[in-house]
C-alpha cells in the first residue's frame, strides 16, 4: 500500500506540510479563510533536533495500536488506511497515548484526528506531499 514517507536529508523544516494539511482537511476553498487567525490542526508535524528536521505523520501500521486501543471502536482500517470515525470519537485521546509516532492528535472539536492520506478530502492525494517544496515527503509503495 502507498504510504507517506519522509526523507530527512531533504526536509527543510519549513512547516509548509502542516499548513497544507490543515488547509486540505479544512473543507474550505481558500487557505486564508481556513487558517487565518485560527489554531492550526495538522495531521503531520515537523520535529527537529540538532539541525535535523523531518515530518511525522500516521504510518498506517498493519497492526495499529490505536485501532486496538480505541475505547469507542471509532478507529478502523479501510483498505489498509487507518481511519477515525470522528462522529463516534468521544475525544478520550487513548489513541494519542498509544501511538508510538505521536501521529494522532486532538483536533478542533476535541475528537482525535490523524492523517488519512487525503483520500477523502478534496485534495485526493496527500497534500503534504504535493506541497513539499523539496520532495522530502513522498507518497509511494515500499
Amino acid at each position, binding site marked *: 500500500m502507498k504510504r507517506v514517507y519522509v526523507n530527512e536529508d531533504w*526536509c*527543510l523544516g*519549513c512547516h509548509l506540510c502542516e499548513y497544507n494539511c490543515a488547509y486540505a482537511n479544512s473543507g474550505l476553498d481558500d487557505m*486564508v479563510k481556513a487558517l*487565518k487567525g485560527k489554531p492550526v490542526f495538522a495531521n503531520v508535524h515537523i520535529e527537529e533536533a540538532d539541525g535535523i528536521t523531518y515530518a511525522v505523520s500516521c504510518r498506517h501500521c498493519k497492526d495499529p495500536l490505536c485501532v486496538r486501543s480505541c475505547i469507542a471502536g471509532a478507529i478502523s482500517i479501510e483498505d489498509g488506511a487507518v481511519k477515525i470515525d470522528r462522529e463516534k470519537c468521544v475525544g478520550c485521546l487513548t489513541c494519542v497515548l498509544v501511538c508510538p509516532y505521536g501521529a494522532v492528535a486532538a483536533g478542533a472539536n476535541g475528537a482525535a484526528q490523524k492523517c488519512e492520506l487525503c483520500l477523502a478530502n478534496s485534495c485526493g492525494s496527500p497534500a503534504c506531499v504535493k506541497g513539499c*517544496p*523539496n*520532495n522530502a515527503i513522498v507518497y509511494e509503495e515500499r
Partner: protein
Amino acid sequence: MVEHFIYPEFEVERNKDRCIACRVCERQCSNEVHRFDPELGVMVADETKCVNCQRCVSLCPTRALKIVKSDCRLRENANWSDETIKEIYKQANSGGVLLSSMGNPKPLPVYWDKILINASQVTNPPIDPLREPMETKVFLGKKPGRIKRDENGDIVTDVTPQLELSMPVMFSAMSYGSISYNAHASLARAATELGICYNTGEGGLHEDFYIYGPNTVVQVASGRFGVHKNYLEAAAAVEIKMGQGAKPGIGGHLPGAKIVGDVSRTRMIPEGSDAISPAPHHDIYSIEDLRQLVYSLKEATEYKKPIIVKVAAVHNIAAIASGIARSGADIIAIDGFRGGTGAAPTRIRDNVGIPIELALASVDQRLRDEGIRNNVSLVVGGSVRSAADVVKAVALGADAVYVATAALLAMGCHLCRTCQSGKCNWGIATQRPDLVKRLNPDIGSRRLVNLMDAWRHEIKELMGGMGINSIESLRGNRLMLRGVGLTVKELEILGISHAGE
C-alpha cells in the same frame, strides 16, 4: 565612524489580509529578514537585509508576500544615477573594492536580440521535426583536413579524441565551493541523463561524482586546485582555464570560510585557507607555454581526451584564438562579457570584455581565413539564454555553447546576484548544510533535464523551419541570420546581412 545610511533597495510588501503567520518566510530566509512578533501576533520584516531572492515569495502558501523595488529615490540625475551614488557611499563606508555576482546587468547591447533567424517558404521547404529525423548530436574536437589512406588504400578512420554531445550545449564551469554539492550533483546527473557534459570549474571533482566522469569536463586553472592524476583520468575532456568572461584578466578568490570539509579535501588545500587563483598561469606567458601545458595534459591522459582552452572574450580575441588553435588544443571555449560568476569585482564585471556574439563571429572568420578552423571546435558562453540564442550561436560559427546562468535558474536561482554572501536561499551558491539541503538533486537534475529537453525541441523546430536537419548543416551558416538595428560595422563583424537584404 558611523556608516552612511543607505536606504534599502527593496521593500517587503506583506498583504496582512492574506498572511496567516505560518512563519515559512521566517524559517526560509537566511538573511533573517522576516520575524514573528509574538506580542503583536504578526510577521514583521527588516528590509535592510533583503536581497530580493524571492525565496519567501515563492514559498508563501497564501501569496501574501511581494518584494518591490523601493521608490525612495535620491534626486533624479541622468549622470549621477541612484546606483552610482550609492556605490560611492558604500565605498566611502568601507574603503573596499565593490563585489558582485552573476553576469553583467548593465543595459549594454545584446546582439542575440538584434539577430533574426530565417525560415523556408515555398522552395527548399521546411522540415517537420515530429515527422522527419533531426540530428542535434555534435562532436567537439579537431577534424581531419583531408581523407587519409593507409598502404592498402583503406581510409584511416581514427581521428583525434572527440567529445560527443547529444545536443550542442554543455553546462559551463562552476566550481564545487562556489556552488554546493547538491548543485554539482544535479548538474552531473542531468548531464549524464542528457548525454552532454558539465564542467567542474576550478574546484576539483568530489569523489562521489567520479561515476559521472564520462560526462564531466575537468578544469585546470591557474590555482591548479584539485588537479591530480585520477581527476584528469576520470574526465571526458580537460579544460585549461585562461580567463573568464565575468572577470577577464583577474584571478579568483574563494574565502577560507568556504573551504571546509569536503570542499577543502576536493580542492586539496587545508581547511580555512583562502583559495586564491592567480590572474595568470605562472607557467604560461606565450602560446608556446600554453602548448606545453596542452601537451602535458595530453601526455597525462594518453592523448585520449580532448583539451579545451577557455578564454574570456577580449579585444583581440581573434588573434588569441588563432594562437590557441595552433597550440594543439582541440576545443576553444570563449566566454563573453555577460558570463556569470560567484563573485567578481563590480568594476571588472561591468566594464571588461566584449560581447560574445562579436567575439564568436570574428574568431570563426579569422580561423577560416587562416585555414585552421578545422583544427579546433568552438564553444561559446556568456549569456546564452535560450534555444534561439543557441541556434544563432551555431549559425554564427559555434560548434556548441556553454550555459551556466540558465542552468542555475533551472535549479532555482532567482538571480539576486548575492552569491558572494554564501547565504544562497536556494541551496546553490552556499556551503551551509541547512541551505545546501534545499536543493534536492532529484528535483535539480529533473529540472535541468526538462530545460534541455525543451531547448532540444525548440532547436529542432527552428532548424526545421530553416529546412535544415542537422546541427552540422547549420554551423557557420550565417546566411540564415539577419541583423536588425545594427550598424554597417556591426553587421560586417557579425558577417551577416541586414534584415531586408
